[in-house]
């Protein structure tokens, strides 16, 4: 039983990271119908920025964290401006390929700048553990869970309660109509990319104490975040996090109880099952096809 709870918590913590990356997918998808295959690499880059600020320049953890988030938000806007905006409105496949290309580029450049070693960021909560009876919970894992809950709530409120959030939803439904209604679609899209890069950075910084930051971490985790986003229903903010947590738990349970090898396959089997049985996901809107 104790093993089970221990696995559950580490699964949830890992799942929250998947959830945060999936959140990035969902934000961009909600606003622009674009799936950003470079989301994991934005997370990786955010982690490296934070490492530069905290580990190399010796800034305070929170200042470094905020600096990395701000820098990555600006970078997200830049990436949108250079790579995505010129091809907005073209078939989805072109945009997918462009973001795959962006991901390649970021991985290689990050490898050139920061080397290929695993890097570690010292955090205020990387040491201690919370003891509840015989249950031992590490603070770094709990911090991931807490941050995910906060971020998810904020984003949900932002999308559903603010004017800007409504504008984003409108431009995702129909860009042209949104433009006619006076929504500055281009600026909206650019802000969405900034937010999604910032969320990715949070994921990267929180992840740093758990699995180290290296240039391929984005690819590995980004691929795991797809099942999370699909399970939650592409386009639902709570869905992304719930999907992420489910995938994380399934993965860590499969790693603990099943034979070797299942751990890596389980998320994708779940993904295929979801796509077959309930393609709109747990929280997705059921949309009828119009002819």
């Amino acid at each position, binding site marked *: 039983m104790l093993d089970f709870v221990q696995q559950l918590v580490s699964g949830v913590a890992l799942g929250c990271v998947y959830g945060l990356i999936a959140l990035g997918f969902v934000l961009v*998808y909600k606003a622009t*119908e674009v*799936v950003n295959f470079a989301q994991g690499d934005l997370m990786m880059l955010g982690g490296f920025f934070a490492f530069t600020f905290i580990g190399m320049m010796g800034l305070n953890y929170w200042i470094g964290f905020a600096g990395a988030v701000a820098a990555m938000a600006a970078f997200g806007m830049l990436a949108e401006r250079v*790579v995505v905006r*010129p*091809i*907005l*409105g*073209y078939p*989805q*496949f*072109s*945009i*997918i*390929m*462009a973001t*795959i*290309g*962006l*991901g*390649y*580029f*970021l*991985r*290689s*450049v990050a*490898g*050139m700048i920061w080397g*290929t070693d695993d890097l570690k960021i010292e955090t205020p909560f990387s040491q201690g553990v919370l003891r509840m009876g015989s249950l031992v919970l590490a603070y770094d894992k709990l911090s991931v869970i807490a941050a995910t809950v906060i971020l998810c709530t904020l984003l949900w409120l932002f999308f559903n309660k603010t004017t800007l959030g409504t504008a984003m939803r409108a431009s*995702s*439904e*129909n*860009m*042209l*109509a949104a*433009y006619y209604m006076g929504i500055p679609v281009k600026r909206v899209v650019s802000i969405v990319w900034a937010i999604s890069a910032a969320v990715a950075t949070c994921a990267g910084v929180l992840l740093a104490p758990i699995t180290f930051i290296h*240039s391929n971490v984005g690819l590995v985790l980004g*691929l795991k975040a*797809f*099942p999370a986003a*699909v399970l939650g229903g*592409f*386009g639902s903010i709570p869905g992304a996090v719930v999907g992420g947590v489910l995938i994380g738990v399934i993965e860590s349970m499969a790693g603990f109880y099943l034979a*070797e*090898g299942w751990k*890596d*396959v389980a998320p*994708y*089997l779940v*993904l*295929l099952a979801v*796509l*077959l049985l309930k*393609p709109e996901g747990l929280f997705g809107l059921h*949309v009828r*096809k*119009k*002819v």
Partner: protein
Amino acid sequence: MRFLFKTDYEDDIRLFPHSGYVVTYGVLLALLLIAPYVLSSYLMSQLVFVCIYATVGVALLILTGFTGQASLGHAAFLAIGAYTAAYLQKYNVPFPVYFLAAGALTGIVGALVGFPALRLTGIYLVIATISMALIVEEILARWESVTNGNEGMRIKTLSLLGVTVPRDSPTFYFLCLAVLVLTIVGTLNLLRSPTGRAFVAIRDSETAARSMGINVALYKVKSFAISAAITGFAGVLFAHKLSFISPEMFTLQLSIEFIIVILIGGTFSLHGAVLGAIFIVMIDPFLTYLKDDMPGIIAGIAATFGAGPATAGNIQSKVAAFASLNGLKGAIYGIIIVLFVLFEPLGLYGRWLKIKLFFQLFPLYKRATFKRQKIYVKSERNR
């Protein structure tokens, strides 16, 4: 400019619309046939890879370019073909048998993948094919009794009708070339048949295709199966060329390379697969060239512009350090993909068509002829 006068449907679907095609492709084929006696062995080896990549590119074009079903999992089909060959070879099955068996098995797997893909479009299909490929990769690593796990499998030298064909011999090149040419001719024939027209109709509008009486599900599965089977054939040749296969060769990276092949070549014509394959395979020799010769050349240029020997040497070592940076290949891949998507969406073959049209229409060429239409109105989610 040549105007083709067509009087009936047979004229419209001819393989060679006019005699110019016969001459051009005849010359090309003749050049390819004498290539092994002219080119160096290194270039020949690259040419074999061009043939294999182009075969996979054609397979991917059938699925992605003509049926409109994106796939980022073709490395898995290649792997199934390669491993089938390696496994059957252990039991002394002759080459023609395991070549066909690999194609058949991969085709069946492709059809099985096609069934779940029926309900999926766009991004979901891409994600589903990626997961399929990752699962296959894991199976290859774990099913040790058949695939030998991560240690990989050795492929014996190809023996065709009692003659051994080493992997760097001209005969092996001719075999690969024959497979490529047969694939291209077969695909051209397929595309001008009712099946091919159904594929294109599904790509352009699934709803319209269905209302014209096309069984969309059946043709999608067919497209997956055909594409996978051709990739399986290519997999056998790939295995023989490398003479050693292991699961880490068939990663997502390889699937993306195949997509790059058709993206760079152009997704609307079979020419694209060949041009893209040449491009992808030649990146490696180009990078080697960059590493070896580029520093000297740039330093030479700097020297002619009046830089002293010390500065020139400094520049040379800096460029050399840059060219041998780890991951330069990945960065170049990334930049190439982004640049092609942004500026040359029709690929290399599209560029060739533009240049050709420019000279045909000489003073009257309009850039807008090839302009893509942007669609802001429809949400793909509600389609």
